[in-house]
């Protein structure tokens, strides 16, 4: 059982608070992702779990053992850094075997186990090479091999895919997930890429300015964002967030542009959130919204719309694009039940789309 708990964890440097009141439980064998913009405190939180940063107040436990004051080497965690931190002066085999040497394992044994791990990661032919002779993807696998050889209680990943090119990133992502599932080790993963967070995590923690803003499964966070920040952060292209007046089923912007949004359990001045996938354009010659730009992405297209000087984004399936080109006049409507309402002042959710979706 390697449950990880952050209880009331705070971290400040001099007088600046970097992480505030972090309360998080990572169930055994789960894959949790900390995601957020730079400076949100996600890396600091990870490093506090590793023991590389001290905790200003609060406690961290691993498998019910209080590790808050322990050195990294006594915590039984393994970590993969963004730049892989491979030891340049050691061969791949020695790199992977290194953690075992720390545990005073006899050299011959350690090297043999390293060979086995390298084999399982497809690195067998590189065992005698130095890290600088390997490609980025291969180096990354060596770093992973070095992490799994110890069979630790917790895996920590600090943006490990950021240095790979886009295609490699997607492939490696899948590999990582398969390894974690196979080994069943509790995993904490940090990234700034919301797509990575969505695809990898069992549970996502969206962080901002040192606080955990929302914790939940990817579906929960996507469908019921707790405020405008999370709503805008998760999902690509970004959710349309517009402030205006909601009366009955019509939403009116300050510019006068009106939109039919179906039944939303709120009224008055609100900030409406509609994902581009849920905003449907229809060609209409006398409408007052005009298509600004159409970007074809293969099976879908991103349509940018000028609705009386407010810019909105729609995503349309390529098959349904007929008639929609730059300059076309269109009306917009929202898919029923896919609209979020947020308080314009605080950004907090008033009514979520799930209310309608699950109620209906």
């Amino acid at each position, binding site marked *: 059982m390697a449950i990880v708990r952050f209880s009331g964890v705070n971290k400040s440097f001099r007088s600046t608070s970097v992480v505030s009141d972090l309360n998080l439980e990572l169930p055994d064998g789960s894959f949790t992702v900390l995601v957020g913009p730079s400076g949100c405190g996600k890396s600091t939180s990870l490093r506090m779990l*590793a*023991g*590389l940063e001290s905790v200003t107040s609060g406690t961290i436990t691993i498998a019910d053992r209080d590790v808050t004051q322990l*050195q*990294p*080497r006594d915590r039984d*965690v*393994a*970590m993969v*850094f*963004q*730049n892989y*931190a491979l*030891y*340049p*002066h050691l061969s791949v085999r020695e790199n992977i075997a*290194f*953690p075992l040497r*720390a*545990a005073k394992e006899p050299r011959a044994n350690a090297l043999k186990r390293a060979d086995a791990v390298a084999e399982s990661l497809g690195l067998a032919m590189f065992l005698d090479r130095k890290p600088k002779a390997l490609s980025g993807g291969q180096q990354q696998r060596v770093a992973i091999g*070095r992490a799994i050889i*110890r069979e630790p209680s917790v895996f*920590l990943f600090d943006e490990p895919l950021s240095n790979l090119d886009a295609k490699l990133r997607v492939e490696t992502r899948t590999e990582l997930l398969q390894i974690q599932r196979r080994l069943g080790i509790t995993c904490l993963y940090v990234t700034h890429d919301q797509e990575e967070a969505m695809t990898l995590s069992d549970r996502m923690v969206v962080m901002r300015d040192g606080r955990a803003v929302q914790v939940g499964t990817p579906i929960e966070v996507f469908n019921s964002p707790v405020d405008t920040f999370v709503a805008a952060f998760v999902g690509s292209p970004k959710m349309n967030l517009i402030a205006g007046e909601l009366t009955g089923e019509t939403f009116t912007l300050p510019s006068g542009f009106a939109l039919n949004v179906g039944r939303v359990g709120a009224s008055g001045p609100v900030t409406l959130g509609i994902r581009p996938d849920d905003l449907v354009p229809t060609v209409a010659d006398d409408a007052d919204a005009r298509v600004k730009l159409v970007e074809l992405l293969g099976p879908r297209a991103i349509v940018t719309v000028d609705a009386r000087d407010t810019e909105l984004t729609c995503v349309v399936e390529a098959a349904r694009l007929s008639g929609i080109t730059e300059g076309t006049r269109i009306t917009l409507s929202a898919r029923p039940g896919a609209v979020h309402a947020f308080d314009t002042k605080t950004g907090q959710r008033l009514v979520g789309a799930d209310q309608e979706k699950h109620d209906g």
Partner: protein
Amino acid sequence: MRNSRTLTICRVALLWAAGISVLFPVVWIALASVKTPEQLNDPFLLSFAPTLDGWRNVLSSGILAAAGRSAIVALTTVGISVVVGSMGAYAIARYRAGGTATRFGMLAAQVLPPAVLVFPFLTMAYALRLNDTLVPVIFAHLSFVLPVVTWFLIGFFEAVPRSLEEQAQVDGFTRFQAFRLVVLPQVFPGMGAAAIFGFTLSWNDLFYGLILAPGKAAILPVAIAGFNTFRGVQIGSMSAAILIAVVPVVIASFFIQRRLVQGISGGAVKF
């Protein structure tokens, strides 16, 4: 285009001139070391029967013993400096140990006029009956080699990514083990250059050696100076002595000139 031709000619001419000015004295001394006093009267005499008198004289004069003593002093000084300096430089580079004061201290100690420290060393040596031994010389040499080596190494340690030692810590090593097993290997080239540079500084010192160990424990530069009396100098022997002092260090310098540029641009040029 004509401009760049003349420029190239100037450049090459300058380098040739520099090369000749460097080689000329050295070659002349090498020739002088195998000439008899009469032959020396004609400095450009190139075809002559060389004599090994000068060399024989020198080798039996204890010059090699002095060279040995210089080596002992230099090796001890550099050995201590590298061990102590690398630990300290690491702490300064990573943790800003000692703050700006320490970094400043390292710089100031390098430019300290030896005249300031030599008298305390002398009186302390007398008090401990260690005058005219190598011990005060080693201490005196440490006073400028240690700061130089440390200063050099700070730059090299700063170039090692922090994540390497953090990874080692997570992998199960103590901080000191991480330093020893992972960080140190990355700075070995820099350490080598610093060591050779420090060795040269110690090997070439005259001032401390002259005052602290003028007699039976004379180090090499002092022994060479000993050939220079106003009674008249045996130039042949002295030339041979000079070559003995000069050649090992110049050969060593061939190996470190590239690292020296790195180390100096890392440490001294960057304040």
